[in-house]
């Protein structure tokens, strides 16, 4: 079949490419509205405090200030900012504005003024009398008896144990791990820690809100989840959903950071209060501590194996912090178990996790969604076990990893905040990703680390990973298509292209199914007034779920096209086919009409709009697979780790657009590289961010990059449109453990904390020299 495809599987240009390379006014902030005001949020300077009194008179008196809101002016509606399907599994512990602040950067008040400068001045004129409360920043301390209670307000809901600052708790077991450990010949248990990584999308969060001529609230926003946003804003501002219109223009990167209703509520509230359009755009500094991060975790992983390397039991115990609010708290952490442990075919698995509130900036969704933490622990531990047994890690993985036809039963227990569905592996290129990745890095030439003259040593490491493709039984999408006179089609989807290329991929799927060229598809996406429902861009769902909806809608529309054509050609519809903007008989006589002729016939003679829509969801979440190989050079004098080569082989199912799929791999790998070595938002002892800028928070630049090799191992997934699964998240998961394993290969020290900083490597080298524990 794949040989006959004309649009799917091709490296077509992005459908939005020309406007992006020419600087077209495509992004949220690329408009000027008459009378637009600048909104600004007053952030809390304290990590934990109650507002005793707030005096806004001076600020309100400042000329040019049109609205000022504190908790006294707005409805108090407990909610979550997590952009998740209703009912959201995250706790309802957040308020538009509150009389208590829970982290440095929490909202105290908001103003809208005629210029940014006036807004900034007004913010400084607000006088707040704080009752500073004891704050807690470390996970273990937050859970300890007597720790300050961060959510002592009575009206929050869905918090697991507010007295102990526990937002969520998860315990799942299949088999009997204790019995499994008794059967094992070797048991290794280690502790791992991971850092607070920031999304650093180049476009900061920005929302512009106004009341339109019908007094409906329009919110133009950099969001991954326009529909969830609409529902949440309506709830928080106590408006009917029908009075809210969310528009998602081009988005300058999201990576999960925009799977969050973050600025839309407060921008909307200011627009309503002032009666003027209002824009709030985070500065880069605000983006670092007033947006979201990856959840920092402490992971204790224990694995039992037979002497031949067969994995018998694995147990992962996690303490995670969600910061001051529980956005995505149980779901991210659930993934740390459900998408990580089943990589191995162990009969006994146990996952336990506490998600803990601290007075730190808030964590949320971030590419990988709990998996980078879990795979760092698991794949580093597996490397240690393989070496202990004298088995090549490549061989160890090939023997133990999940296979075609396997049923992952842990996923059945760990759904999106509730019972899930079992995962059946219907496509699996994992063994090939291991093989081809090993060949690309030159695993065979891996040699014992030998010191060269300058004290630098080289080593190689590897890691395998998987993810999901949409949330089984929850994620769903819809699509609508109609024909135009020129044989083109309008494709309307609620899906949110956040820069990953969804509009292009969905257009390719429509064009392929309808038998038209790509230029005949005109896509509109992510507008709650004009496009049908879609949960949004997250959980690696868009290609498989939204793409599935597009394919179904296109099949229905194609059937209508064939009916019209069948009357025109006087041939049964079953004998007709569409390709290259033509409908033709498949018999030897080959009669044909063009799509344009069909459109004109339908619209003007038959008085019929060829149009249809479809909805789609899956009851399973087919995992994409990925293997990462790293080669590093470690400077034993300075502890500096230089990554020389990252080879990534990934199984996305069918790559609808291989060039875009490669781009997803390379972007994910680069974020994984930062997670491994440089990226961490550091807080001082009062919870204030120390490095909220790109000079002090280091993401890799073009000059810093190692060699990247990207290999797509395509498989055919029965549940995906044209065999597609997903690709955007899975390649981030294996980078940190592959690098940590390569460091061990090079210099014999185990790095179990992320990011792996030179001083940590140096300290570990020193400890090793002194005969310390490794």
């Amino acid at each position, binding site marked *: 079949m794949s040989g006959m495809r004309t649009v799917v599987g091709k*490296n077509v*240009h*992005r459908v*939005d*490419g*020309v406007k*992006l*390379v*020419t*600087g*077209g*006014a*495509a*992004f949220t*902030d*690329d408009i*000027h509205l008459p009378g637009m005001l600048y909104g600004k949020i007053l952030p809390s300077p304290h990590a934990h405090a109650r507002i005793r009194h707030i005096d806004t008179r001076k600020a309100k008196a400042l000329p040019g200030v049109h609205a000022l809101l504190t908790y006294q002016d707005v409805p108090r509606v407990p909610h979550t900012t997590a952009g998740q399907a209703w009912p959201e599994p995250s706790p309802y512990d957040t308020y538009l504005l509150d009389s208590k602040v829970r982290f440095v950067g929490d909202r105290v008040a908001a103003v809208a003024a005629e210029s940014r400068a006036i807004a900034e001045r007004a913010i400084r004129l607000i006088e707040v009398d704080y009752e500073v409360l004891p704050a807690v920043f470390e996970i273990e301390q937050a859970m300890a008896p007597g720790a300050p209670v961060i959510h002592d307000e009575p009206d929050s809901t869905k918090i697991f144990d507010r007295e102990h600052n526990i937002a969520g708790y998860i315990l799942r077991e299949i088999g009997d791990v204790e019995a499994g450990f008794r059967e094992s010949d070797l048991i290794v248990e280690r502790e791992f820690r991971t850092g607070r990584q920031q*999304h*650093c*999308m*180049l*476009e*900061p969060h920005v929302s512009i809100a106004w009341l339109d001529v019908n007094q409906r609230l329009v919110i133009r926003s950099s969001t991954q989840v326009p529909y969830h946003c609409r529902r949440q804003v309506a709830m928080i501002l106590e408006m009917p959903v029908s009075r809210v219109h969310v528009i998602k223009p*081009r*988005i*300058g*990167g999201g*990576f999960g950071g925009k799977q969050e209703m973050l600025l839309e509520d407060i921008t909307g509230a200011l627009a309503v209060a002032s009666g003027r359009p209002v824009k709030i*755009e985070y*500065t*880069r500094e605000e983006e670092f501590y007033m947006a979201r991060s990856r959840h920092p975790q402490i992971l204790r992983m224990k694995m039992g194996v037979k002497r031949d390397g067969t994995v018998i039991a694995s147990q992962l115990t996690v303490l995670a912090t969600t910061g001051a609010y529980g956005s995505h708290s149980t779901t991210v952490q659930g993934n740390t178990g459900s998408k990580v442990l089943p990589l191995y075919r162990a009969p006994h698995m146990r996952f336990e996790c506490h998600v803990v509130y601290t007075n730190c900036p808030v964590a949320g969704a971030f590419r990988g969604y709990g998996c980078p933490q879990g795979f760092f622990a698991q794949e580093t531990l597996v490397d240690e076990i393989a070496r202990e047994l004298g088995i090549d890690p490549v061989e160890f993985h090939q023997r133990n990893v999940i296979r075609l036809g396997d049923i992952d039963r842990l996923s059945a227990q760990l759904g999106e905040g509730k019972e899930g569905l079992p995962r059946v592996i219907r496509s699996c290129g994992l063994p090939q990703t291991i093989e081809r990745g090993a060949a690309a890095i030159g695993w065979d030439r891996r040699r014992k680390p030998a010191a060269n003259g300058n004290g630098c040593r080289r080593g190689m490491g590897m890691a395998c990973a998987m993810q999901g493709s949409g949330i089984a039984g929850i994620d769903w999408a819809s699509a609508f298509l109609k024909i135009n006179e020129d044989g083109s089609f309008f494709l309307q989807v609620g899906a949110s292209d*956040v*820069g*990953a*290329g969804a509009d292009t991929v969905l257009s390719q799927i429509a064009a392929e199914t309808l038998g038209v060229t790509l230029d005949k598809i005109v896509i509109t996406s992510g507008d709650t007034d004009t496009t049908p429902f879609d949960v949004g861009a997250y959980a690696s769902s868009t290609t498989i779920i939204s793409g599935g909806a597009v394919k179904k809608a296109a099949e229905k529309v194609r059937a209508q096209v064939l009916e019209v054509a069948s009357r025109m050609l006087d041939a049964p519809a079953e004998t007709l086919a569409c390709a290259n903007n033509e409908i033709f008989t498949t018999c030897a006589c080959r009669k044909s009409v063009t799509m344009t002729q069909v459109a004109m016939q339908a619209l003007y003679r038959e008085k019929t709009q060829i149009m249809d829509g479809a909805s789609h969801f899956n009851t399973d979440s087919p995992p994409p697979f990925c293997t990462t190989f790293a080669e590093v050079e470690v400077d034993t004098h300075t502890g500096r780790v230089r990554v020389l*080569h990252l080879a990534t082989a990934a199984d996305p199912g069918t790559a609808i657009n291989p*060039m*875009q799929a*490669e*781009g997803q791999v*390379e*972007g994910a*790998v*680069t*974020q994984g590289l930062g997670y491994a070595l440089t990226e961490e938002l550091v807080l001082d002892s009062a919870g204030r961010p120390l490095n909220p*800028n*790109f*000079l002090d928070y280091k*993401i890799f*630049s*073009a*000059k810093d*990059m*190692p*060699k*990247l090799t*990207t290999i797509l191992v395509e498989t055919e997934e029965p549940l995906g449109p044209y065999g597609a699964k997903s690709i955007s998240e899975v390649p981030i998961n294996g980078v940190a453990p592959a690098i940590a394993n390569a460091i061990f290969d090079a210099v014999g020290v185990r790095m179990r904390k992320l990011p792996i900083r030179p001083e940590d490597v140096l300290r570990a080298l020193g400890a090793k020299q002194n005969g310390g524990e490794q």
Partner: protein
Amino acid sequence: MKAPVLKTMEVRLTVNGQPQVWTIAPGDLLLDVLRREGYFGVKRGCENGECGACTILLNDKPVNTCLMFAAQVEGCGIVTVEGLADGAKLHPVQEAFLDHGAVQCGFCTPGMVLSAKALLDKCPHPTEEQVREALGGHLCRCTGYRKPVEAVLAAAKKAKRPRAAKPAEVTR
């Protein structure tokens, strides 16, 4: 007596070949004025000179407009990404960015395209290292830089200048 505070001033310059007169406040950032004038290809990424998204060519050199006052560009020639295409015909660097999948979200793209153009104008056959140096001031969170570097090398190769071009093979 104190000098009167200067509320506004005029700046004369050319933008994408068009002569312009701007009325600005002395403290206005070049970034803000360009966006106000409708050059939305100039992006606000950090306002700190760290990300490169607000890059323009000022007298043919890439600069961060978030680090300049508009008052500094009196008499200068500015090229923004809006000025690169010749009607519907894209600049070879723009074309190569599309051909090679170097555009993802597109937010950093205008800056990278302009720095690449500036590089190729003075160095038509750059090495990969020179391309990486030229793009070094542009943070991109989507691509991992491989495809943008590949695109710039391919644009250089396609230009078919007299000397033999370097192959577009990217090593990292």
